């Protein structure tokens, strides 16, 4: 009996939370290709680091995916799937207009992964020092509320609790665009980015 009551209570709580969780959707325009949209730092709130390790692969002399977006505290596994040697480094971690120190992960054998935990939010421009044309990006979002747009710029961030936030749009080679967004259920927010 006690167990049943607890189950019902839990279900009610989940439904209540779901009722208060909205989404942010819209379009990033101004430049072609994929962008990243995320909810910026929320004062007084922290989020547990995700346990899964997304993979940034080097394959066919390309970083794949070209853009990876993760929450701060995430460990990214860097993989070399090519039969040629690569390395991975980023000259700096761009946090708004601030440059934080970069990192060189060196090189490792084909097929092996090298993990790196991103402890700070920002954007890492990934490079390979033997193949200067290779470029990739890891956008480290300060919250778990983020999304990568499709190629037309459309995005949807799910499960954002109702409230007032600063939402940022990032695009490769463009200045960040940000705006205040009040989430109440499904909320629309469009962004225009430019160089």
């Amino acid at each position, binding site marked *: 009996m006690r167990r049943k009551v607890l189950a019902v209570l839990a279900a009610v709580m989940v439904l209540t939370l779901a009722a208060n969780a909205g989404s942010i959707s819209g379009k990033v325009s101004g430049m072609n290709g994929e962008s990243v949209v995320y909810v910026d730092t929320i004062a007084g709130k922290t989020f547990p680091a995700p346990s899964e390790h997304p993979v940034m692969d080097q*394959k*066919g*002399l390309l970083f794949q995916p070209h853009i990876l977006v993760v929450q701060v505290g995430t460990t990214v596994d860097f993989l070399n799937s*090519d*039969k*040629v*040697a*690569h*390395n991975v*480094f980023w000259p700096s971690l761009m946090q708004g207009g601030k440059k934080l120190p970069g990192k*060189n992960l*060196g*090189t*490792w*054998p084909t097929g092996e992964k090298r993990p790196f935990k991103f402890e700070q939010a920002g954007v890492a421009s990934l490079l*390979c*020092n*033997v*193949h*200067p*044309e290779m470029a990739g990006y890891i956008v480290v979002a300060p919250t778990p509320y983020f999304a990568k747009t499709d190629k037309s710029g459309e995005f949807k961030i799910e499960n954002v609790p109702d409230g007032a936030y600063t939402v940022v749009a990032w695009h490769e080679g463009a200045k960040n665009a940000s705006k205040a967004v009040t989430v109440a259920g499904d909320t629309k927010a469009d962004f225009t980015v430019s160089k």
Partner: protein
Amino acid sequence: MCKRNAAVCFLIIVFLLTVPSTYAIPAFSRQYGTSCATCHIDFPKLNDFGKAFKDSGFKFPKNDEDFIKIPPVMLGAPAQKEMFPKVIWPGTIPGMPQIGLRFNTFFQVYSRNRNTLVPPTADGGGGTFTPRTDFQPGLFSIFTAGNFGDGIAFWVDDDFSVGGANSNGGLGDGYLKFVNIGRLLKLPTDSLSLKVGQFEIDIPFSQARTWNLSGWDIYDEANYGAASALGVGGVNNAFAFSTPGEGVELSGGHNYGGYHYSLAILNQSTNPNGPPGAGPNVSPIVGTFSDSNFKDLYGRFQYRFNLEKDSTSRNDVQAAGPNGPRDHTYLQVGTFYFYGRSVQRFTPTGSTTVFTAREPFYRTGGDFSFNYRTFNLFGLYMYGHDRSQVFNGAQTGLMGAPSARFNGGFLEADYLALPWLMAIMRYDRVQSEADFLNGQAAASSGNYFQPASATRNRVTPGVQFLIHANIKASFEYQIRPQQTGTDASGNTQTVRTNQAIAGLEWVY
């Protein structure tokens, strides 16, 4: 002085401002969607990966198909192989023409004393006037290279124009290479390949694809023996190591580690361009490239010791450095031997009898290359020997005469200070008694480089900047040997005529 310093500072600032991120699109860059820097340190100097790419027949050493951005066109489905010999063996051609173009242009400055000594040329004429400064168009070349699948690689490069004159161009290398044909004989991988066509022989450091503004002098050294006191004859051999040869070459091993060898059989042609002095070499008739039945032989063997402690890194194409892959630390040693036979025909005065002099010659030597990170020290020593035949006193036959010999080589240090900045220091030396006696200068060196003694040497510091991965600005200062001679008034003068060269080169 102040003005000069300001000018130097301005030039440095201009260079620094024009060095952005590097992208380049020569022939292979387009196919693989990668920068020139993947294969070159300071183009055309190859890094270890570039050497492996070349060894593999212009393919990535492993899983080449994973990297090709423009898929090749199939000349028959691979499954057709099962139908052979009832079908043509299937192959591929590159998905787009593998074309690269190259152009360079130069500016030269000579010392003020460049015309002080106007020594006679080899044929007894007067010297030529050399201007203080000179703008020079270089060469405009086309090159195409790639592979046709199944381990058949190709390369063709041709100069449309050289020195602004379109008639001076010509075919450089043009060959097919059947890579790793040893597999048909169940030999170890890459132990046997076959190259057929016209190509630069497998000299230790390529002159055709040198990154220096001026070539290594010893490679241009021909051997013209001193005229014999006994009459017509002597050595008159125009062959130089920088001359491309036509023939076949067997090769094997790798240039990025371990052994590498090559054996070539080439046309005999010791009179390719009509050497100075209008020698009596046998000229090939129109339609042939050889000037005798004899075929030259060339062999080379080298071994490269990669010095990394970690065996995986040591045996891989590139070494694994803490900050990314890099060229190996290595020591390479090698040796080479060329054997040929110069053919001349003489007719005694007042006679119709033709005497044929067959004068065997050889070139041999050794070389080394040591690399530590971005510092490369390498050198070569060569000894040349031509047997000589001259008329006997009565001109009734030929007799042996003293051989014509030369030796020399070079030592060069390259330091890649930054990925776009390479400093170079070179020492070139050629010692030839015959050159001294003949007043014979190195090819294209002008009258300021006439041999004032049996030894001709120069020191050449230089620096090269990559403006992009495909555009290069180069500077070189040639410190020439001191010469003593007579000026136009008959006064004895001792001068040293140096030369500064600036070059711009781009490929796309």
